[in-house]
């Protein structure tokens, strides 16, 4: 699954100033909420589910990238968003380094294959170190989107 198929364009944030893990996660979920996802208390539930998953093991997989994720019944298909944190976030990553690029995935319950397909898509883009450097330099959500859309087309 290509990233441009599940990243919600309107929820991308290129300049997250928060430097704490929970604050960044909350901001990303709030961006999705403002883009029309999650009703009522669902946004809070999603934050809790993501934080609960992080307690099992950090999704900071090294090289400045994290993939926080959760399953939640409020989404009918897998949705995602991206945050670029220029100051870096302490994320308990596997390499103990701060995280600068976060890709959040929220998938419906009982749809594990979508989640795995999305991870493939994230890997296709972000395993390329020069692509991550470009993302970190992006100063607007439009620039982030263009980088992803162009990479998906290549």
């Amino acid at each position, binding site marked *: 699954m290509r990233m441009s198929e599940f990243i919600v364009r309107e929820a991308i944030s290129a300049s997250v100033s928060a430097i704490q893990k929970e604050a960044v996660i909350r901001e990303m979920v709030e961006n999705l909420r403002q883009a029309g996802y999650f009703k009522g208390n669902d946004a809070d539930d999603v934050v809790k*589910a993501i934080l609960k998953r992080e307690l099992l093991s950090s999704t900071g997989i090294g090289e400045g990238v994290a993939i926080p994720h959760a399953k939640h019944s409020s989404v009918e298909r897998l949705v995602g968003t991206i945050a670029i944190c220029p100051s870096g976030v302490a994320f308990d990553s596997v390499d103990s380094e701060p995280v600068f690029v976060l890709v959040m995935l929220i998938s419906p319950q009982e749809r*594990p294959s979508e989640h795995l397909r999305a991870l*493939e898509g994230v890997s296709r883009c972000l*395993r390329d170190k020069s692509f991550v450097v470009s993302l970190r330099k992006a100063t607007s959500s439009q620039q982030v989107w263009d980088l992803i859309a162009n990479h998906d087309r290549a």
Partner: protein
Amino acid sequence: MTDAMTGETCRLSIAITNPQGFHMRPMQAFVETACRFACEVSVGIADKQPVNGKSMWGLLSLGAEQGMKIIIETTGDGAAEALKALAEVVERAYDEVPEPPA
């Protein structure tokens, strides 16, 4: 499960039984385990090029769902021991605790 050893290379084909597939937590445990050994570790699936089993990015690109088979290949020092440890990681249940209702 088949097991073949040729010199310093060991190979094992193993079915993914976890309903969530080969997801991030087992992948992380796999990489951590693989990195404890000096040997090279590759992981392949059906029609895809094998990936580096010591790299999260490699494993993330596999997309191994329940029922699919992955082929783990270890080459070099400690290959047999590494293969045994990696098979245990793949076979371990990571979702034994059911999720409470949302």
